[in-house]
């Protein structure tokens, strides 16, 4: 996973799954207060991200700390790093 691709791919998930306009998807945007995703939407988002990045994140407690898009980008990048480290 190239970490430079992560924001673009995550934004793609938001556009495809939630039909949110790409120009709304700026890193500082708050996922609930500004983009309108609630806890049930987050479950759908997690499923979509798992598919896109071929990762497993459903039971990860760190998801609870995610508030903004940037938090989400950072989390997925961190997952990628952890996965690479575990494969070595």
């Amino acid at each position, binding site marked *: 996973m190239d970490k430079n691709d992560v924001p673009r791919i995550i934004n793609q998930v938001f556009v495809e*799954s*939630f*039909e949110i306009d790409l120009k709304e998807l700026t890193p500082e945007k708050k996922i*609930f*207060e*500004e983009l*309108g*995703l*609630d*806890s*049930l*939407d987050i479950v*759908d988002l997690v499923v979509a991200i798992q598919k896109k990045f071929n990762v497993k994140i459903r039971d990860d407690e760190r998801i609870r700390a995610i508030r903004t898009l940037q938090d989400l980008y950072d989390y997925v990048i961190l997952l990628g790093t952890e996965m690479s480290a575990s494969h070595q």
Partner: protein
Amino acid sequence: MNRLLNIYIYSLIVTYTLILYPFFLLSFIVICLFLPKRLFYRFLRRFISWYGLFIIKVLVFPFIKVKFVDLAPNEKITPCVFIMNHKSASDPYLLACLPYEIVQVVNSWPFKIPILGFVAKQAGYLSVKEMSYREFETAIVKLLSENACIGAFPEGTRSGEGEMGQFHGAVFRAAAKAKVPIVPLCVMGNERIPTKKFVLHRGTIKIRKLKALYPEQYINMTSFQLKNHIRNIIYDELLKMKNEVN
């Protein structure tokens, strides 16, 4: 002057609740012990509505007036899910304007209100924070199949004088599962009736019941799209209402 108004109105409401409500409720329970369970629940929920209706139409009049307009009076909508924006703590009482058997979706704190909380619980009101989504969905679908309507405030928190908040989607998912109409309701004018610190002010509260959105109209929407569609409908109508005032 406003302090006197608050003392007057809250005294009336507390007196009404403490003295009259248990009296009527006991009578109802005695009568309803002889009725089938389903009829008991129906009467109890309508009784809660009448209790609320008396407060909003009689007790607080003329200091606080409530004007309800049905923009689609001839629609056959029940059972359905009513969705209302959430301005203040008076919103649950305002649902009494609707002449239907309604079960409200609430946060956990209303259940802690003496007498009212107990009765709401007996009437099957749903505390969304104390249930898993699966339990919530099952309860909603069951209530709708029994021809009860659901009343919900999907912002989950009072917006007061601020902008309408984002909607939580649980009740929309459940409505879609049950394949029932969703009826938007707009309320304005009660931003300070009462305030977040429960101080009442004089004013006129306006409620509008809009046209229902039927399952065939939302069948191709995701739940995220559905909740935002309803939110946009309510938002646009509130803008219209605001412009009419100005």
